[in-house]
């Protein structure tokens, strides 16, 4: 049993190397090897569920048998508590889905052997990161993860901008890795240990400037890996060009490493999440991230770029909830983390299916695909409903928990900041729904362009992994009590109980505990589904029974000209006439990008600002990263 974590990591790495050896001659053998490696890792993680989640054990493991002596940890250790295993499960499930999808999706690409080798190394490094109990080991895994992800981003290097996106990711990702290394070095210089359990035992009693700096460096490093606010342009550039299965990995798995790192850092190592300054820092980062990214997503014309911004926006939710510092907040964050992997993976895979069949990701060029790809469209609607927080899907359950956590925090502390956080979270959710209406209109509804007349639905082998994700989305949404009881509470307990983490690793006897929390209000997703259906019926009845006739004629208001093309709307444009005149036009295609033109027009200064901010120049992005690092370090020195 104690060997399972290392075997799971090594299965993925061995799979990578065996695939590199055999896959060159026969792709079929290579695929079988890849599948077996992923299946072994998944089964080993699933086998750890009963002891860790139900019995509350913490599995510790010392490489080479170098157990600690006299309270000092010399060797490299693995420590799997409920929090690590929670993320380990997310990782292995996402890897499985992504790998199975790739078998069909990547079938026409060449040098697939390199793709799968890098893919399995990426998977192995991420799994090693979440299971590791050693801070330097985490840095090594972060490096493997970043470099294989960069190479995979540029894998289809015939795409325009693939090398450019990968290069940006490489440069700014390296800033993040550097931050983690510096933070680790500062801690090592002070405490003479790299073991996280020992740090958890020693750090809270020591408080000096160097350790505060180390906290700032590590926080920025993990924030880079999660693509939080000043780092989000990288994710957009990388996602737009990466293969869809790699987009799933980057959004669903790599950002989770950043989230895991921040949770471990604030709750496990430094245990300073109780201080108001750290709560402001983490929650503030999350809040800004979720709002800026969702408004950026509004302006995108590329399917996967739009999804990328939404992905980061949802990670912002997770970080916001985690930063609240309460048991309910951590549970809500963890729940949203797993949900984010599911629905965002689903949406990226749908985007990949659309790209696979039509060869395009351009939101302005696509349209009407629901007639040609009805099954894919259905899956997309499940994903869109989940991410927008519509019941009965999982996004609703976790967002509800996040709102409740914010409410509870605002009520306890009486702090206006948390009221604001809650409002921002709600607005972000509404904007998310709005931009998915836009995507649905652009891609699946509206008129079908003639060039897509012979498009077919994607192969069943590609749809099957998406169905798995859709089923999980629905299951988690309908039975949130189940996952809360068996997964979230033990994981939250592990996150909050740093003493148990330290003691178990170093040979103490403190038992791990499960956290307990109460939701504020009664709620059931099914009640909300009924409500939604009733409202839908009412709207339909009103719409059907309304008098046939024309709307009153309105004079189009003269609009001020602006300097931006996609925000500025020329009033004489014929396609807006249905909005103004009420005259019956023969056909007027309202493009998905034009659905919310009034909103964009009113906010054009805001959008122009962010449009200029995302300059696409890697020097700028590196500068933003360094400025963020400086700001966080200053904040930590002054307030933490």
């Amino acid at each position, binding site marked *: 049993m104690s060997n399972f974590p290392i075997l799971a990591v090594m299965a993925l790495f061995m799979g990578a190397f065996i695939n590199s050896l055999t896959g060159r001659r026969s792709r079929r053998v290579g695929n079988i090897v890849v599948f077996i490696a992923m299946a072994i890792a998944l089964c080993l993680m699933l086998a750890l569920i009963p002891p860790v989640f139900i019995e509350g054990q913490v599995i510790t*493991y010392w490489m080479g048998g170098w157990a600690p002596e006299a309270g000092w940890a010399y060797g490299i250790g693995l420590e799997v508590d409920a929090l690590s295993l929670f993320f380990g499960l997310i990782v292995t499930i996402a890897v499985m889905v992504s790998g199975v999808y790739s078998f069909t999706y990547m079938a026409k690409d060449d040098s697939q052997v*390199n793709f799968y080798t890098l893919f399995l190394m990426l998977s192995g490094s991420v799994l090693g990161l979440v299971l590791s109990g050693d801070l330097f080991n985490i840095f090594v895994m972060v490096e493997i993860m970043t470099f294989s992800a960069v190479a995979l981003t540029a894998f289809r290097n015939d795409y325009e901008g693939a090398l450019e996106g990968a290069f940006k990711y490489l440069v700014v990702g390296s800033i993040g890795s550097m931050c983690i290394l510096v933070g680790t070095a500062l801690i090592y210089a002070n405490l003479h240990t790299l073991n996280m359990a020992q740090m958890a035992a020693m750090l809270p009693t020591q408080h000096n400037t160097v350790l505060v700096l180390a906290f700032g460096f590590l926080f920025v490093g993990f924030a880079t890996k999660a693509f939080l606010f000043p780092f989000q342009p990288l994710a957009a550039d990388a996602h737009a060009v990466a293969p869809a299965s790699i987009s799933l990995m980057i959004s669903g798995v790599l950002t989770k490493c950043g989230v895991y790192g921040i949770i471990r850092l604030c709750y496990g190592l430094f245990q300073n999440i109780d201080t108001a300054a750290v709560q402001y820092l983490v929650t503030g980062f999350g809040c800004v991230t979720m709002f800026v990214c969702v408004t950026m997503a509004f302006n995108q014309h590329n399917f996967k770029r739009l999804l990328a911004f939404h992905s980061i926006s949802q990670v912002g939710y997770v970080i916001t909830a985690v930063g609240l510092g309460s048991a309910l907040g951590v549970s809500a964050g963890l729940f949203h983390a797993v949900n984010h992997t599911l629905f965002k993976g689903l949406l990226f895979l749908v985007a990949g299916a659309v790209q696979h069949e039509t060869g395009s990701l351009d939101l302005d060029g696509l349209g009407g695909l629901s007639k040609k790809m009805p099954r894919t469209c259905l899956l997309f609607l499940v994903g869109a409903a989940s991410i927008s927080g519509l019941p009965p899907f999982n996004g609703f359950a976790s967002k509800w928990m996040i709102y409740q956590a914010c409410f509870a925090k605002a009520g306890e502390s009486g702090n206006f900041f948390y009221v604001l956080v809650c409002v921002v979270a709600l607005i972000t959710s509404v904007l998310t729904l709005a931009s998915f209406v836009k995507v649905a209109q652009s891609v699946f509804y509206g008129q079908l362009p003639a060039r897509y007349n012979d498009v077919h639905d994607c192969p069943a082998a590609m749809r099957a992994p998406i169905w798995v994700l859709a089923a999980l989305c629905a299951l988690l949404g309908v039975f949130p009590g189940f996952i809360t009881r068996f997964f979230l509470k033990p994981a939250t307990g592990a996150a909050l109980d740093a003493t148990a983490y330290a003691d178990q690793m170093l040979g103490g006897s403190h038992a791990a505990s499960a956290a307990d929390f109460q939701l504020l209000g009664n709620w059931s997703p099914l009640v909300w589904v009924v409500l939604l259906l009733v409202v839908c019926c009412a709207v339909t009845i009103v719409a059907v029974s309304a008098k046939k006739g024309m709307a009153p004629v309105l004079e189009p208001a003269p609009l001020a000209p602006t300097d931006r093309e996609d925000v500025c709307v020329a009033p004489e444009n014929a396609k807006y006439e249905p909005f103004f005149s009420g005259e019956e036009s023969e056909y007027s295609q309202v493009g998905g990008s034009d659905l919310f033109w009034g909103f964009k027009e009113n906010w054009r200064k805001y959008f122009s600002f962010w449009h200029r901010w995302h300059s696409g120049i890697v020097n700028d992005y590196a500068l933003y990263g360094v400025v963020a690092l400086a700001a966080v370090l200053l904040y930590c020195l002054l307030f933490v």
Partner: protein
Amino acid sequence: MANQAKAAKKKDHFTPTQNPGGKPHKKALGIIVRFGANLFLPLACTFGGYVVLHGDSSPGGGFQGGVLIASAVLLVFLGYGTQKLSTTFKTSFLHNTETVAELMYIAIGLIGILVGLNFAVNFVIDTFHLETAVLMNGAVGYHVMAGIGCLLIMMLGLLGTSESTAPTNPGEKTKMAEITEAERKEVGSDDEL
């Protein structure tokens, strides 16, 4: 920008052995450089092997020793140019054996689990008077040697031909995924020069 500067610097470094066009030119190779390469090649290999073999008990180890041995590739390139490089080393063989070395490392590590101890545990195989740490060091040494060697051969090969054929032809998917992204970028910026 920094990459271009770096690539340019690298080119300057090799100008004594190459004409400015970047094509291999046999006549231009100096006898001193060749003599130096002949002298240092066995030394580098021997010292690298020493560092690998004593990695378990002295500073150094598989990684450092492997890099030392891989410097032989550079010496051959400096002394004899790109053409000799491609005839001396067989990249596919190096690549495959590198993978085998990686697998060997994990397999030796797994022996620890099979005998009921932890992963990567060090124990002595009595019949051969051999510690597994030495074996693992050897595997790492070979892996690094082959890996860095492959990397150098690819980079130097592209360096020689970067003017005549574009290394990152946008139409075809090259075998570039094997090279890490850093080298890819260097190659890419090299192309733009």
